[in-house]
């Protein structure tokens, strides 16, 4: 481990700015003070770790006050309103209610009769942008697979905003927010970034304002295969834990050392230990999840969600007690050994235990159909006598992922004052026969199936066969 960090430091030292930063900035005081407090006019200084160096420049696009009337509304938190009204203005939800909900005159009103309204769909696990299409080698930016622990890398530095996948997720999936994670080659893959699903020239224009960072970790087969295959640690599951634990111990020591020079990797780990950065842990097997939860307690951090948790159903009780969400597929199974016990009842069995369920994609195609995946998982439960209402199931792809991404207070449900991230579906979203008809992000109409010009086309697709096609 020490070699890896030495190498990381060596790279950081290569830049003159890094040298300067090291001399002027202590680990935790923050660059603002370091810069402002410096009395030496000539001293060079980087911004500090709390200065949000790649800050969001997203601002809601112009919108007009809009209401949808007569639709069936799923509010994302388990509520259902028949023949309801959603009214949004100024980019926010202004009111949600029954047919008598007042709507001002002179605003745009859509007839939702026979249609359905949900909050914008949220994918907690995506690689759009860092494994974009076309999936050529030159675009392979999701795994910094050169060290088993790379907490210093940030997914946002790999996101290509022109990935056509963002537009498909919007148009076919109603996706309004998503978390882009580093891949799972490493035990500690780096920071994730949460995005608004708006077309943009820069990733900063997509960054979800105020969203906390996530931290990607991975259990099991991938890290031990990648590094074991190179004859280095970890090559086993026990090696995975050993490397993780030593890395956490080093981070704790760093946090407690006021003299330590800045270390990007440890800044991320300290952010996790302080609860500012949320852990998203790729982990398939139940027994490994149980071990990870103990490791988290040992080191003093919390796992927010296990991703790809195909065996979560075996430990729904433990996951509930530890308040950890399971982000899962509906029906992926058997493609690798640790996915061998995948069953379609996973979500329903977790729900039976009162544990948190999130349906995720990890896939540029499935992100276009999270609603269908949720419906499959619901039906599997129904066949086993576990009846989960439609309105609750919609929460698996709206409110629950929002909560687990730390943005549940501002989006993920249709509540007064929240961001007007809204999807109007042309039928029940839990049916294979339904599609998004309109998608609003912060009250701005970003997709309209009825109007070909309200359909984003990425730079990459311009002038190509099928540019602007319905897709």
């Amino acid at each position, binding site marked *: 481990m020490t070699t890896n960090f030495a190498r990381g430091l060596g790279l950081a030292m290569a830049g003159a700015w890094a040298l300067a930063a090291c001399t002027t900035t202590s680990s935790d005081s923050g660059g603002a003070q370091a810069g402002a407090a410096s009395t030496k006019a000539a001293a060079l200084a980087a911004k500090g770790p709390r200065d949000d160096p790649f800050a969001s420049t997203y601002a809601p696009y112009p919108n007009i006050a809009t209401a949808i009337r007569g639709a069936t509304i799923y509010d994302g938190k388990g509520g259902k309103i028949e023949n309801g009204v959603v009214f949004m203005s100024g980019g926010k939800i202004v009111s949600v209610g029954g047919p008598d909900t007042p709507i001002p005159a002179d605003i745009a009103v859509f007839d939702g009769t026979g249609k359905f309204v949900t909050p914008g769909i949220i994918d907690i696990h995506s690689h759009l942008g860092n494994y974009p299409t076309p999936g050529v080698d030159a675009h392979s930016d999701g795994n910094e697979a050169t060290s088993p622990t790379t907490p210093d890398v940030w997914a946002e530095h790999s996101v290509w905003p022109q990935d056509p996948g963002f537009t498909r997720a919007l148009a076919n999936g109603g996706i309004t927010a998503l978390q882009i994670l580093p891949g799972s080659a490493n035990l500690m893959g780096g920071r994730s970034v949460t995005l608004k699903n708006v077309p943009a020239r820069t990733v900063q224009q997509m960054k979800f304002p105020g969203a906390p960072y996530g931290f990607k970790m991975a259990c099991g087969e991938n890290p031990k295969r990648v590094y074991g295959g190179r004859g280095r640690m970890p090559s086993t599951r026990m090696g995975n834990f050993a490397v993780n634990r030593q890395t956490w111990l080093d981070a704790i020591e760093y946090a407690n050392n006021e003299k330590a020079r800045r270390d990007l990797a440890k800044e991320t780990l300290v952010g996790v230990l302080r609860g500012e950065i949320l852990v998203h842990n790729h982990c398939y097997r139940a027994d490994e999840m149980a071990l990870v939860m103990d490791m988290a307690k040992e080191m003093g951090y919390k796992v927010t969600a296990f991703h790809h948790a195909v065996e979560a159903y075996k430990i729904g009780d433990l996951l509930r007690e530890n308040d950890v969400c399971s982000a899962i597929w509906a029906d992926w199974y058997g493609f690798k050994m640790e996915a061998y016990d995948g069953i379609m009842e996973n979500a329903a069995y977790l729900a039976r235990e009162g544990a948190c369920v999130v349906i995720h994609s990890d896939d540029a195609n499935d992100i276009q159909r999270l609603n269908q995946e949720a419906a499959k998982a619901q039906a599997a439960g129904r066949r086993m006598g576990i009846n989960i209402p439609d309105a609750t199931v919609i929460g698996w792809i709206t409110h629950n992922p929002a909560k687990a991404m730390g943005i549940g207070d501002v989006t993920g449900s249709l509540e007064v004052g929240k961001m007007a991230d809204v999807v109007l579906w042309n039928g029940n979203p839990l049916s294979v026969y339904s599609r998004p008809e309109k998608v609003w992000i912060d009250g701005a109409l970003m997709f309209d199936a*009825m109007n070909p010009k309200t359909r984003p086309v990425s730079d990459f697709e311009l002038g190509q066969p099928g540019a602007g096609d319905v*897709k």
Partner: protein
Amino acid sequence: MRRFVALAASAVAVALAAPALAQDVFITNARVVIGDGGEPIEGGSVLVRGGRVVAAGSGVAAPAGVPSMDADGRWVTPGLFATLTSLGLADVDAVGESNDVRAGGAPFSASLDASLAINSTSQNILVHRAAGITRAATTTLPSGSIFGGQGAIIDLDGDANAVTLPRAFQLVDLSEGGGRIAGGSRVAAQVLLRGALREAQALAGRSGMPATTEIIKGDKVMLGRFDAEALVPVVTGRQKLYVMAERAADIRSVLALKAEFPRLDLVLVGASEGWLVAAEIAAAKVPVIANGLDDLPETFQKLASTQSNIGRMKAAGVTVAINAEAAQNPRRLSQTAGNLVALTKVPGAAGLSWGEAFAAISSVPASISGLAGRAGVLAPGAVGDVVIWDGDPLEVGSVPAKVFISGVEQSLESHQSGLRQRYRDLDESARPKAFDW
């Protein structure tokens, strides 16, 4: 090679013959889907005798001596037909020792014969049977050379005779992937294909050990003598040639092969940009096994991908089946078909009617696979593969309540159902979960 064909034909006869345990089944009060592209028939019946469909639809007379089963208004359909798949050729994809789908280290390609290694009780077969798939095309995939080998048509009843039709088709990759295998260029793949077919032409009608010019690069055998021999039925039109191609230009070059090798019986696989050349495909009467929901420019050969691809090709008169290989797993075939129905409500998109969508996962793939009228359809004389569903079979929440293959009711159990039962609760107060089975 004549001997090969004779063997194949007799194998069909054997595999499609009524199994010893064949049941007679008379299903009444059903919403019957014939599978031929038509819409469901309310209040219909299905009669299977001796493992074969006798009649299906409305007005089927109750036969004497056959126990009847009330479907209670539920959907009754032919078994789904999945093409292409690797069912029976792998337990766990990423566990190499369990996976026979690629043989890149072998000096064989076109001569590979999937029918020799089908594991009829593979968990993947059990899981997909429980999803309503009763027959499938299964094949090894190109790895050492552009030829993937000879795929088989199998049934999913788990008995000793999984193979309905051995060596039903040869698979060749003329897409980006084929170019890479052939040495880094599509151009090389085209030369390799032509060279191989010419070797096969030279062998046609000859007996004994094949004497050919082998094509070898380093330690890779691109075409061995047995591969050339295996291509004789392809070049003489007695075995279908499935060609993987995505880009419009690549599809055109596949269609052009007929000018040089007129007897080729071509089938396109993938065809993400097929809609751009749909009229040409239709004119050439080449059927397509198309990726259903691809809509991303995953590679430069799929720039024009759209979910409307199949709908547009169908509208242009192309025969199209939905490719199971393109879904996350083949049990998503019905979901894919349902999505194509959904497209009919999206302005500017092209989809399929419900009946067409269902046919694209039943009778059409069966027909492309050489079982026209004999599988994937509830027509008199067809195999008695029948599924009773708990809902609309194309809806995401639906699964089969009962599955019959050649008239025999199938178990719907698997490793997954075992886990489902064991973990229906987490109660270990008396004994660990290991005692709950």
